[in-house]
C-alpha cells in the first residue's frame, strides 16, 4: 500500500523538537526519584539535577554557566534555590535530586541575591545591547531581564575589561573578549564535547580570561573550529561571523549534513531563503548536538561563483560549451544514448550514482539504468571505498552493514580501531570515542601511521600496532590465532549462533603456527609480544568493539580483512548488544544509502542479487518492464570496457571519477574513448572537463529527501531554498527518463520513498510521516521492528547463523623493489572533504591549501629532502610532485598523502590493483620512489594546460538561442 505523504503538511519549519536547554545533561538510571518543586511533583531518574528537573516542568531557574550538554560547573551562582532542610542556598545545577526534596525556586532572598550577581556581571560588560550581534539571542540579556536588574550601583568608571580586543583570526567566528563573562562554557565544551582541550581560563579572580592554546589566536591554537564553543557561549563573545554581518535568523529548518558518514542533524538558521548559520540539532540521534568544522561552517560552496546553473552541451571536448535549455540538453542526451545503444548494443551505456545525493535520487538512477537503459551497468562510489564491507559482512553476518549505533561506543570497554582515522574523518564520532576513553575504556589502534587518536589530550592508546601497509590480513589472522591458541574463544556464543562446519574449518585453519604473531611479525612488522597483548586485551574485554575504515577495505584483500574482522567479533561473542560489534565507518553522508538502494551492477535495492527471480519479478511488476538478470559492469570494468571500445556512454551523477578513482591516466584514457559523457554536478569538476553534457545539480540545501548514515540511520534532508538551476537532482533523472520514453510520476520525494518501502523488506515501515515523528529511523524497519533497529543481530544473524570465513594472507602484487622502494598510503584531513569540490570552495582552504607528502625523517635524510621541498613521487602507474612534510608519525619505508586537490595528482600514482572480490582499488598500497625535484611533474604541466583550456571553453559558453525550459 502506498502511503501518501502530503507535502502541504510538511511545513518548512518542521516541528523543531524542544531545542530548549534543560541545564544539565540527562542521566539514566533505573531508580526513579520523586520530588516537589514549587509545589509541583515530578519524578526523574536518579542523578538528575534539581535545575534539570525544574526545567522539565518548564520552571526555568535562571542560569548562565550551565548548559545541558556539559557537566555542571556551579560558577555563576544564579541558579541558587531554597531547599527545605538544606542550609543556605545551594546551586540547583550541582545539586542532585533526592527523594522527598522540597524546592522553592523563587523567594525574596533568592531574587535579591540573583540581582546582586547580575549586577556584578553587568558592571564589567559593554552596554551596547541594541547594536550587539547577540541582540535577540543573549542569555545575559535574558537573565538581566529575568531577575529584574534596574541599576548598577558600582558605576562604570572602575577597572574593567571593556577594551579587550576581538580575535578575528578564525574564518568563521569571532572571539570578542570584551563581552566575556568567564562562565567557562566554551572551555568545558572544548573539553567534554569535542575533546580537543584547546581552551583554558588563564589567570585568577578579576584577571581570569579565556585563552586559546598558549595564549595564541584561535587559528594558531589547537582549535579545530568545530563551533562547540560558539554554540555554548551565552553572550556575543564567541559569535558566528555570519550573524555579526546579517543578524538573527527569522526561521529554522532541521536537515542533515551532506559531508561525512556521521550524518549530523543540523538546524539551518535562515533569513528568507538564505542560510545564515548551521547549528547542530541537539536532538540529532547521530551527533547529539555536536558537529565539525565542515557541516557547521563550510556550506558556502552552494553559492560559490563556480556554481553552474545552466545545462550545457557540446559535441566534443575540444569545443566550447553551449548553454541550452533543460529540454534541449535532455533531448540531446537521449538521442545520443539511444543511438549509441543502437550501434554498440544495450550494454554500451551505464551510470554512476552519488553518495552526495539522496536515497530517492539514487534509487531513481538505478531504476533509470535498469528500466530504461535495459542493463545493470550502474555502480556507485562505494565501489572505491566500502564495497568490501558489503561483500565481507554479507558473507559472515548475513547483512551488508554495521551492527551498532555510534552511541554504543559509550558502553565499550575495549575499542579496536583498524585502518581508520576518526578524529579527521568522523570527527563527531571521534569526540564521543575520546569521551569514552577518558572514562577509562582501552584503545588499540592498527595503523601504519601514528594517527592523532594514538596520543590525544587525556587519552592514549594502550597498543599501537604500527604495521606495514598491505599486511592487514596477516595481522588480523595473528590476533585470531592468539584467541584460539590461548583459549579465549567465546564457545557458548559460537555454539549458539554460528555455523558448526564453517567454524571448525576456520579453527583448523587458524590454529596453524604460520599465523602466530611470532611468525607473522616478519610480514607485519609488529612485534609478537605487542600483538599478543593487544589480542588478549580485545578478547578478554567484557565489551569489545571494532571500528574500521578504508585502511581495511582499500586493499587487494579488503574483503578478506573485513571477513577477518567479523571472525574476531564472532569468536569473542562481541555481537548483538550495546558496546560491541563490527562498525564500518562509512565515509560519506549517503554511501550507505546508495548501497541500500541497489545502485550496484549485481544487486537490486535491499542487497538482492539480480539473478534472484522472485525479487526481479517484484520490480518488473512495479516498473512494468523486463529486467536483465545478469550482473553489469563495475566502475573499473566500465573503464576497461571503454578503452576496449565497447562502453561509450555514461550518466555520472555527483561523482568525480577523474579525481577520485585510481590511476588517473587510465581513467582519462577511458573517458576520452567514450562518445557521450553526461555529468550532473554543481561545478565543472575534473570529470566534467571530459564531458559532452553538463546538467546542473542541486546541493543538499536545495532538495527534499533522505540520507542514510553509517549507523543505517535514515534522516530527512529538507529543502531550504529553491534549486539554483531550477530542478532538484531527482527531477533531472525523471526528466531524462521521460526524454528516453519512460514516465516516472512523482510529485514529491516522499512518493519515491513509498515505492522503495513497498519493494524492499528492510525498508517496509519507512515513510516520511514516521521519519518526522521519530526524527530518524535505523533500518531494518518493518513489521518485526516498527520503529527501526539500533543494534543488529541480537538473537540471530538475519534469521540464520553467522559463518566464519577462511582468510589466508595473500601478499599484494604491488611489490617494492629497488626502483620503487617506499610504500605510499593515502588518507584524509579534517578540514577538507574527499576530492575537495565542496570544501575547497569555502574558507576551509585556510587550513589545507595543498596536499603534502609526509615522509619519515630517515627516508627524507637519505634523499636530501628538507621540509617544504618539492618532491617527485613515481610509481609504476605515473609520476606527480608535491611538497614534503617531514614527520615522525610515519614509519621508515612508508610515505603518505591526501587527495583533496586535483593538481596534487595523488591518483596519477595509484594503480589498478584492487580487492579480489569487489575491485575496490588498493589506494593504500602503492610502491613508489620519492626524489627531490625542481619542477612539477609532466602530468601536472599537462593538467594545468588541459584545465586552462576547459575553463576557457566554460567561460566562452554561448547563451541559448531561445529560453525554452
Amino acid at each position: 500500500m502506498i502511503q501518501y505523504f502530503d507535502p502541504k503538511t510538511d511545513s518548512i519549519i518542521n516541528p523543531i523538537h524542544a531545542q530548549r536547554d534543560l541545564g544539565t545533561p540527562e542521566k539514566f538510571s533505573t531508580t526513579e526519584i520523586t520530588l516537589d518543586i514549587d509545589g509541583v511533583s515530578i519524578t526523574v531518574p536518579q542523578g538528575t539535577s534539581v535545575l534539570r528537573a525544574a526545567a522539565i516542568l518548564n520552571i526555568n531557574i535562571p542560569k548562565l554557566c550551565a548548559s545541558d550538554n556539559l557537566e555542571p560547573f556551579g560558577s555563576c551562582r544564579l541558579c541558587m534555590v531554597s531547599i527545605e532542610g538544606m542550609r543556605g542556598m545551594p546551586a540547583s545545577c550541582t545539586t542532585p535530586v533526592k527523594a522527598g526534596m522540597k524546592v522553592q525556586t523563587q523567594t525574596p532572598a533568592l531574587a535579591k541575591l540573583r540581582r546582586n550577581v547580575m549586577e556584578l556581571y553587568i558592571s564589567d560588560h559593554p552596554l551596547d545591547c541594541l547594536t550587539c550581534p547577540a541582540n535577540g539571542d543573549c542569555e545575559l540579556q535574558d537573565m538581566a531581564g529575568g531577575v529584574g536588574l534596574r541599576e548598577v550601583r558600582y558605576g562604570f568608571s572602575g577597572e574593567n575589561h571593556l577594551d579587550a580586543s576581538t580575535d578575528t583570526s578564525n574564518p568563521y567566528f569571532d572571539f570578542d573578549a570584551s563581552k566575556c563573562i568567564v562562565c567557562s562554557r566554551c572551555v568545558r565544551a572544548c573539553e567534554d564535547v569535542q575533546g580537543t582541550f584547546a581552551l583554558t581560563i588563564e589567570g585568577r579572580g578579576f584577571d581570569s580570561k579565556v585563552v586559546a592554546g598558549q595564549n595564541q589566536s584561535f587559528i594558531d591554537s589547537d582549535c579545530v573550529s568545530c563551533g562547540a564553543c560558539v554554540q555554548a557561549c551565552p553572550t556575543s563573545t564567541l559569535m558566528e561571523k555570519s550573524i555579526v554581518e546579517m543578524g538573527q535568523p527569522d526561521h529554522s529548518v532541521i536537515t542533515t549534513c551532506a559531508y561525512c558518514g556521521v550524518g549530523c542533524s543540523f538546524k539551518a538558521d535562515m533569513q528568507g531563503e538564505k542560510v545564515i548559520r548551521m547549528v547542530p540539532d541537539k536532538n540529532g540521534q547521530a551527533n547529539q548536538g555536536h558537529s565539525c568544522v565542515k557541516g557547521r561552517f563550510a556550506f558556502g560552496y552552494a553559492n560559490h561563483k563556480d556554481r553552474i546553473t545552466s545545462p550545457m552541451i557540446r559535441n566534443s571536448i575540444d569545443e566550447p560549451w553551449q548553454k541550452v535549455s533543460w529540454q534541449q540538453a535532455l533531448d540531446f542526451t537521449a538521442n545520443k544514448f539511444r543511438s549509441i545503444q543502437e550501434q554498440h548494443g544495450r550494454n554500451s551505456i551505464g551510470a554512476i550514482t552519488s553518495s552526495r545525493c539522496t536515497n530517492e535520487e539514487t534509487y531513481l538512477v538505478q531504476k533509470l539504468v535498469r528500466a530504461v537503459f535495459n542493463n545493470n551497468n550502474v555502480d556507485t562510489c562505494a565501489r572505491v571505498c566500502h564495497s568490501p564491507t558489503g561483500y565481507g559482512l554479507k558473507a559472515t553476518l548475513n547483512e551488508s552493514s554495521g551492527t551498532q549505533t555510534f552511541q554504543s561506543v559509550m558502553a565499550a570497554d575495549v575499542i579496536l580501531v583498524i585502518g581508520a582515522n576518526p578524529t579527521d574523518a568522523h570527527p563527531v564520532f571521534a569526540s564521543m570515542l575520546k569521551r569514552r576513553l577518558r572514562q577509562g575504556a582501552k584503545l588499540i589502534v592498527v595503523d601504519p601511521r601514528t594517527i592523532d587518536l594514538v596520543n590525544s589530550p587525556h587519552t592514549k592508546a594502550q597498543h599501537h600496532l604500527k604495521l606495514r601497509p598491505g599486511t592487514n590480513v596477516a595481522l588480523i589472522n595473528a590476533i585470531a590465532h592468539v584467541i584460539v591458541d590461548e583459549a579465549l574463544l567465546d564457545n557458548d556464543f559460537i555454539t549458539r549462533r554460528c555455523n558448526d562446519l564453517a567454524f571448525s574449518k576456520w579453527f583448523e585453519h587458524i590454529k596453524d603456527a604460520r599465523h602466530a604473531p611470532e611468525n607473522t611479525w616478519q610480514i607485519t612488522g609488529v612485534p609478537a609480544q605487542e600483538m599478543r597483548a593487544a589480542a588478549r586485551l580485545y578478547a578478554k574485554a567484557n565489551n569489545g568493539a571494532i571500528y574500521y575504515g578504508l585502511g581495511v577495505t582499500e586493499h587487494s584483500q579488503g574483503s578478506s580483512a573485513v571477513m577477518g574482522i567479523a571472525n574476531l567479533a564472532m569468536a569473542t561473542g562481541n555481537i548483538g548488544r550495546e558496546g560491541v560489534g563490527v562498525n564500518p565507518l562509512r565515509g560519506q553522508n549517503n554511501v550507505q544509502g546508495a548501497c541500500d538502494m541497489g545502485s550496484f551492477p549485481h544487486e537490486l535495492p535491499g542487497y538482492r542479487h539480480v539473478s534472484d527471480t522472485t525479487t526481479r519479478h517484484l520490480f518488473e511488476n512495479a516498473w512494468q518492464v523486463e529486467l536483465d538478470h545478469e550482473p553489469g559492469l563495475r566502475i573499473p570494468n566500465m573503464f576497461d570496457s571503454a578503452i576496449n571500445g565497447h562502453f561509450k556512454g555514461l550518466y555520472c551523477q555527483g561523482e568525480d571519477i577523474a579525481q577520485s578513482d585510481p590511476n588517473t591516466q587510465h581513467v582519462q584514457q577511458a573517458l576520452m574513448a567514450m562518445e557521450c559523457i553526461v555529468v550532473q554536478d554543481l561545478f565543472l569538476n575534473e570529470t566534467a572537463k571530459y564531458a559532452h553534457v553538463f546538467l546542473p545539480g542541486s546541493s543538499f540545501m536545495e532538495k527534499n529527501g533522505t540520507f542514510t548514515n553509517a549507523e543505517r540511520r535514515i534522516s530527512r534532508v529538507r529543502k531550504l531554498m529553491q534549486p539554483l538551476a531550477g530542478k532538484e537532482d531527482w527531477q533531472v533523472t525523471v526528466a531524462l527518463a521521460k526524454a528516453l520514453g519512460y514516465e516516472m510520476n512523482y510529485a514529491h520525494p516522499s512518493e519515491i520513498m513509498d515505492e522503495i518501502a513497498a519493494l524492499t523488506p528492510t525498508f517496509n515501515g519507512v515513510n516520511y510521516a514516521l521519519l518526522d515523528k521519530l526524527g530518524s529511523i535505523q533500518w531494518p524497519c518493518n513489521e518485526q521492528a516498527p520503529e527501526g533497529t539500533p543494534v543488529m543481530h541480537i538473537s540471530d544473524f538475519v534469521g540464520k547463523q553467522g559463518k566464519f570465513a577462511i582468510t589466508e594472507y595473500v601478499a599484494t602484487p604491488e611489490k617494492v623493489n629497488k626502483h620503487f622502494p617506499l610504500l605510499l598510503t593515502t588518507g584524509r584531513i579534517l578540514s577538507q572533504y574527499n576530492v575537495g569540490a565542496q570544501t575547497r570552495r569555502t574558507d576551509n582552504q585556510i587550513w589545507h591549501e595543498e596536499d603534502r607528502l609526509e615522509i619519515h625523517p630517515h627516508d627524507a635524510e637519505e634523499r636530501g629532502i628538507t621540509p617544504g621541498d618539492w618532491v617527485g613521487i613515481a610509481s609504476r602507474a605515473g609520476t606527480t610532485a608535491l611538497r614534503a612534510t617531514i614527520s615522525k608519525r610515519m614509519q621508515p619505508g612508508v610515505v603518505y598523502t591526501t587527495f583533496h586537490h586535483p593538481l596534487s595528482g595523488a591518483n596519477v600514482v595509484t594503480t589498478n590493483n584492487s580487492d579480489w572480490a569487489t575491485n575496490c582499488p588498493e589506494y593504500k598500497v602503492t610502491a613508489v620512489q620519492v626524489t627531490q625535484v625542481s619542477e612539477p611533474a609532466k602530468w601536472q604541466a599537462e593538467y594545468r594546460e588541459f584545465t586552462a583550456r576547459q575553463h576557457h571553453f566554460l567561460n566562452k559558453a554561448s547563451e541559448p538561442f531561445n529560453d525554452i525550459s
Partner: protein
Amino acid sequence: MSHSSTSHLIEMANQIALNLSHGREQLECISEIAKHIQRFWAPSMRLQLIALVALDNPQIHQRVNIAVTQLSDYSAPT
C-alpha cells in the same frame, strides 16, 4: 582487446583463485571461483575470459582454466 585490459582481466581472475584456495579442497575451490565469477562479472567479461582460456593463455591460473567450464556462458569446443 587491448593488451593491458587482457592482462588486467587475467590478473583479476587469478586473484580470485588465489584468495579462494585456502581451507578448501580443490574441487570446492574451483566451484567457488566459478560461482564468484558468475555472480559478480558481467557476461562480456566472462566471455572474454572464456576466450582467453580457449587460447591456452599461460598466465591463467590452472584452477581458473577449469572453473570457466562451469560458467553458464561456457560451451564446450566441438
